[in-house]
């Protein structure tokens, strides 16, 4: 009976496989626990040395020598341990550890791994090199961020460049934000922002680039860095750039920089003929610039038919504090479409300043409960 035999064999094979898997589970767990204990035992003798070395914040020659003299087995357990300490520290304490890794050849080894075939290996090396900033091969990482065929490696390399924070990387990071092998805009932007004001000249050039993403990233970061001298260029970008995304980011940047000369441009960006997304961002930016003219403009925007514009104008007024209160109260008391928006923000201000009674039973007596208008706008 062949079918019968086939079944029997299949059944036996399944049982054997099941047993093998069960054995694998047990072996795996045993090995993992053993490896954990072994690494711990290897690292333990060095821990007091490491802590003393780090905390004295001066390289103690004998401690350094003993740690560097660890045999290959101990070092393989010690190295990840030192790296995890590097992640937690700043300043001299961190530098002491990075020097240890440098002297023991970790950095040279990681450099070599940047060109290995496996994407995971390259990404890991790039991440660690970013962490060990001062000795990292900036140019190799830039090449990786721009040209590696694996998207994840490019992302990790771009992040590493931000971590290292050398303004010279600005050009590469800007370029990495566009093209067929692009790094996501937010990630490139974050790294550029970490480079600090030194990146500003390159970003100003980026604002005139013919690539949309370069202009968008440049505008965003010039705002985040608060580069005052970029206001003029950003103003013209906010009005005239052919791409909506760049106009929006430029308007936001103008708000972050906060120079009053940007107000006329931002006012035009809130005009009814502009895109609602731009108008909403511009309204917020107007509030960040502030001043009497801004308050007047925002008070008008409260009555805007577009929800996002009115809501942003209201919140912007809320952030301007006491000077904006009369305008908010006036609108809230009226019957215009802006009234519920103004009321919402006024209530929020009162809540935060403790001027309103809580819903809690034990709250102080004598406070006046605000009238509640939970409006719904079509």
């Amino acid at each position: 009976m062949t079918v019968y035999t086939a079944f029997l064999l299949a059944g036996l094979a399944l049982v054997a496989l099941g047993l093998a898997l069960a054995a694998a589970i047990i072996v795996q767990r045993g090995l993992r626990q053993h490896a954990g204990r072994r690494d711990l035992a290897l690292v333990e003798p060095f821990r007091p040395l490491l802590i003393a070395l780090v905390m004295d914040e001066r390289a103690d020659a004998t401690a350094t020598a003993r740690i560097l003299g660890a045999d290959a087995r101990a070092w393989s357990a010690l190295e990840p341990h030192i790296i995890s300490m590097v992640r937690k520290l700043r300043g001299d304490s961190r530098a002491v550890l990075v020097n240890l890794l440098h002297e023991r050849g970790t950095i040279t080894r990681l450099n070599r791994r940047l060109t290995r075939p496996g994407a995971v290996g390259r990404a890991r090396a790039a991440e660690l090199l970013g962490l060990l900033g001062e000795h990292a091969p900036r140019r190799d990482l830039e090449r990786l961020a721009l040209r590696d065929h694996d998207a994840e490696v490019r992302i990790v390399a771009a992040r590493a460049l931000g971590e290292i924070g050398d303004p010279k990387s600005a050009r590469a990071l800007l370029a990495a934000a566009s093209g067929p092998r692009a790094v996501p805009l937010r990630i490139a932007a974050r790294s550029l922002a970490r480079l600090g004001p030194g990146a500003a000249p390159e970003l100003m050039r980026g604002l005139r680039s013919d690539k949309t993403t370069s202009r968008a990233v440049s505008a965003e970061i010039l705002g985040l860095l608060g580069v005052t001298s970029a206001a003029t260029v950003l103003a013209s970008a906010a009005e005239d750039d052919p791409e909506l995304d760049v106009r929006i980011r430029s308007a936001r940047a103008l708000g972050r920089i906060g120079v009053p000369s940007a107000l006329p441009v931002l006012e035009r960006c809130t005009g009814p003929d502009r895109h609602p997304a731009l108008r909403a961002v511009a309204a917020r930016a107007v509030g960040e610039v502030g001043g009497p003219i801004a308050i007047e403009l925002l008070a008008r925007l409260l009555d805007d038919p577009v929800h996002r514009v009115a809501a942003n104008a209201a919140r912007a007024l809320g952030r301007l504090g006491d000077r904006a209160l009369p305008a908010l109260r006036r609108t809230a008391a009226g019957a215009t479409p802006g009234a519920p928006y103004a009321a919402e923000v006024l209530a929020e201000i009162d809540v935060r300043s403790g001027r309103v009674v809580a819903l809690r039973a034990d709250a102080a007596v004598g406070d006046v409960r605000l009238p509640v208008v939970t409006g719904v706008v079509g």
Partner: protein
Amino acid sequence: MIPHVVTDAAVAFLTGFDWFVLGYFLALNSGYLVLLALASLEFARHLRRLPFAGYDEAYASPLTLPVSVIVPAHDEGPGIVDAVRAMLSLRYPEFEILVVDDGSTDDTFARLVEAFDLVEVPRVVTPDVPVVGALVSVSVPRSALPLVVVRKENGGKADALNTGINVARYPLVCMVDADSVLDPDALMTVSKPFADDPERVVATGGVVRAANGCTVSGGRIVEVRMPRTWLPRIQVVEYLRAFLMGRSGWSRLGALAIISGAFGLFRRDVLLEVGGMAHGCIGEDADLVIRIHGHMRRTQRPYRVVFVAEPVAWTEVPTSLKVLANQRRRWHRGLAQTLWRNRSMMLNPRYGRIGLLTLPYYFVFELLAPVVEVVGVSAAALGFLVGAVNLSFAVLFVAVALAYGILLSIASLALEEFSFHRYRRWRDLALAVGCAFIENLGYRQLTAVWRLQGLWAELKGARVEWGTMSREGFGGPAAASQPVGSRP
């Protein structure tokens, strides 16, 4: 006296049917095996990349996309304060917690007011997605905590979620069950695909596991253990096999159809485009994801729905047979409704893998599985009675089918052990292996009956009954009758 011709025909039919059932089970389990293999590739990929995931960096970045976490709550009084407190301490740069109190009849709202010192405020809410139950009030805490509590008239979970979507201020929206215990890094983990592939990722989900038996402190899991009784223990293994491996496998194929209502992250603009959650259906979480697939395919935009193979949420599973039965009936009804509502996508090449692979698979191997299982077992028994099947063959057939099932459960355990190994005690491991057997010998057959009942109820068009479960609560004696959780 029955004529020979008739009995011969009956015997031939029964034999044929038995072979069909055999083939079906073989295909079903082999489907699982393929998903398991895909899941292990996915896990390996994920784990190898963890060291450079950059969570710390994303955490410190002012450019990380902020998230609105929507927590629909209906009569969640006993656990709501702990749940909200735990959610407020999630590790994420910028987020708001939106509790939507869906017409609770208990003290859910009063407890929140007490714990967070809430104050009622006016708020302009735009009806971006349709809502049935009217908004009653919006409250915020007096401190600077990023919490908003919305009260509305009862309209069901989907309606509460839609209200949340309307109130949400941030571009990403996370939907969480009020009884989910979240990992502190849950938002970081699940939002990573949005950061790495912002152009395409529209929705992500993470692993949901059974919380029973685990030590929960301050709304967080501090020690993972197997539950103390057998029924939830079996579900732990079942969750690993059916949900964790299944979802990871489908995600690897780029054809993930379900993101659990217990924890899912979505782009708000896409939620608005598809009109939010659908009212009046049970499996609203699966329905949403399938509609998102349909929408993105119809508008011909490149997109991805991603499952992150990392435990992010823990949920209490039923401890009594009665509650479990209700839960499974409801899940299966939800599946039937979801497939029916999206039937135009079934086998439609326009919808790519989701239409040609996922939906047909769910129809044949999920929806119809209990039918084949129950009818198949009956037919085999009948076949044995009339002599169409010989005894040793029948026993062998059953044994092989069971061995295959047990093998899959053990393989899932192995995968968990090789990847996350959250169950640290040897005792828990031994229990899990024991459960791998019980799950296949009895438990699955039992769920097949319940699922069949669910399907039957749906076909009859019975009124939707919301299952309730009495919670044991974590560590406290507080017990309340509450809706059973989302499918993980």
